[in-house]
């Protein structure tokens, strides 16, 4: 039981921060399917930074990880500019643009990883090897039965994510900027009339989304795979989008959806272990989050509260 909670949380929280990024972008009225690519590119930038500085610090030092986090956020944000350029400047179809960004991210990170490994580090490898982040246990509270598991064997990034998520929530619902952002998604003309530049607000939303996705990506790279390679693209970005749709574009319900995915996944893995099934059954367990997503969408997509101007290109002259 404890293991299910511990593993579930370490999967759900990176997913959650990516979903928040998606909420920011979609709430501002820009369809965001590029989370997958953004998290991958963010993870690439972070992993590159971590590998580059790893020689300076001792083997178990947590500093490279924090440097990686910063670079992952920056990398994701910069790469998101492509989506912004296509959607805002060139008025491209936002769904297509998102897919283009994903494909670009996969192609570029695969190429660059190989190239940089050869040129800078002199190794023929298609991955950056990272360490698995060390875990911490919070002393007193972790002894509470069942609930204590939440505070046991935490990855440090989980605390960072919770903090960032809270700030993101605060900005979205308690500040003027957040209000403008939400208004851009529902009634961009009103925002324009109020004297705010719609495209600027949307640009910042896309960049925020890129940063948060990058953060999620590097957390996955440090926890699940312990390296950066093309195996980072396993669809968690899309899972995050499903979570935010299921959460009705609101941050707190989305957290619930992410936790559900996380526990379904860790629960399934545990089941395979407990019943001592052959390892090929893990493939069957892997489909759990996806099947769950589809089923939930069947029930919740009907009355979904998508932002009203979602996916529409803002045209000042239109009525």
């Amino acid at each position, binding site marked *: 039981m404890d293991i299910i909670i511990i593993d579930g949380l370490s999967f759900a929280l990176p997913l959650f921060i990516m979903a928040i990024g998606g909420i920011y972008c979609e709430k501002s009225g820009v369809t965001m*399917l590029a989370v997958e690519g953004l998290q991958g590119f963010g993870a690439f930038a972070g992993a590159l930074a971590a590998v580059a500085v790893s020689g300076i610090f001792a083997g178990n030092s947590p500093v490279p990880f924090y440097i990686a986090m910063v670079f992952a956020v920056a990398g994701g944000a910069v790469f998101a500019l*492509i989506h912004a350029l*296509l959607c805002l400047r*060139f*008025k*491209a*179809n936002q*769904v*297509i*643009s998102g*897919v*283009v960004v994903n*494909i*670009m991210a*996969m*192609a*570029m990170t*695969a*190429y660059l990883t*190989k*190239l940089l490994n050869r*040129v800078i580090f002199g190794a023929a490898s298609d991955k950056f090897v990272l360490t698995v982040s060390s875990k911490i246990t919070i002393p007193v509270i972790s002894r509470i039965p069942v609930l204590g598991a939440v505070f046991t064997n935490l990855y440090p990034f989980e605390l960072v994510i919770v903090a960032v998520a809270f700030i993101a929530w605060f900005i979205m619902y308690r500040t003027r900027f957040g209000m403008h952002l939400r208004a851009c998604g529902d009634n961009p003309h009103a925002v324009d009339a109020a004297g705010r530049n719609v495209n600027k607000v949307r640009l910042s939303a896309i960049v925020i989304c890129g940063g948060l996705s990058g953060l999620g990506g590097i957390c996955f790279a440090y926890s699940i795979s312990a390296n950066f390679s093309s195996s980072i693209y*396993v*669809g968690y970005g*899309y899972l995050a*989008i*499903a979570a935010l*749709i299921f959460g009705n574009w609101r941050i707190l319900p989305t957290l619930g959806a992410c936790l559900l995915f996380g526990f379904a996944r860790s629960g399934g893995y545990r089941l395979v272990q407990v019943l001592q099934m052959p390892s*090929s*059954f893990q*493939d*069957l367990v*892997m*489909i759990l989050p*996806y*099947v769950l*997503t*589809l089923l939930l*969408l*069947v029930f919740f*997509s*009907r009355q*979904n509260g998508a932002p009203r101007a979602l996916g529409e290109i803002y045209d000042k002259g239109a009525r």
Partner: protein
Amino acid sequence: MKKGNRTWNAIKIPLFAILCSLVAGGVIIAVTGSNPFRAYYALLQGSGLAPKASYANYKNILTDFFSYVNYFTPMIFAALAVAVALRAGLFNIGVSGQMLAAGFTATILVGYSGLGSVLAKPLVLLVGMIAGGAAGALIGFLKFKFNINEVVSSIMLNYIFQYVVSFLINTFYVDPVSRQSAEVSAASRLTLMDTPVGGLKMDIPLGVIFAALAVVLVWFLFEKTRLGYELKAVGCSRSAARYAGIRVGKCMVLSMTISGMLAGLAGVSYYLGYVGSIQPKVLLSTGFDAIAVSLLGNNNPFGIIFSTMLISLIGKGSTYMKSTAGVDSEIASVITGIILLFSACNVYMKWKLERRRQEKLNAKDAQNGQGGV
């Protein structure tokens, strides 16, 4: 506007996109210290469009070319699948998953059955179409009935297919040596492998004939039939189509079904044509590259032939390029990505061109007006 002029305008933008991407790719290759012209020539050589320096036994430029045709056949089907959905305003990003589902179903039903070649080959096509069509129809149905974004549902299905097929292969059909699914019977393969023709050993792809047929049929559907017209109307504006009395839901499900059937054909022509087995846990990039191909071809069936040949050229030739010009084969997908990036801007470029034409006309009118006074 004259017809020829319009065709030229339609071609101008993709050509521009290709040119930009090749230049961008060339710059990347040059920066990393290789000769871009040699790299691009190696792409042609690898695809049998230019002679190589030397050939192995029983091989020459023609075998390379046939192998290239064999390679791009699935891509034509896949790009048509994307185009049919896009024309109706839907985005089928699940082509890869549908290919896998169709390829796997055909493999276990026909590929392992031991049927004779006359019966097996048509059956493979049929099973592939049915399986792919069913997967596509499911996505369309979910969209129509439950308002589920087709992008999300098809991606979820991609992963579900990938893992379920991987599980089934590893449990029942695995070849212990290759760690892939056991090879399908030669009778069911859509490519006649290593057929001796005039002192050469060639892979003759039969699928390409059906691909050509599919191109014509899709063109016919959209240009000459009522259903095609309705699909296009739904793609242009869902609400306008509804007011015109078109049953939008039916159209969405139908277009996804047709799209899925084409994806199924892509699947069988890959898994039971180009290769003879399925690698577990791997989703092909064909379905995603097909989006680039379709966009580049303006979603026009005949345009798709050319864009398929181009994009496949980059993919197919990249292995040879790596061995001769020393350029990482991953650059191929980077170039494809850049092409995609430029073609995503086509609406903007079209608008820009149109505006420039208008301005020119206006200027001319103003001049004429002055001359008249």
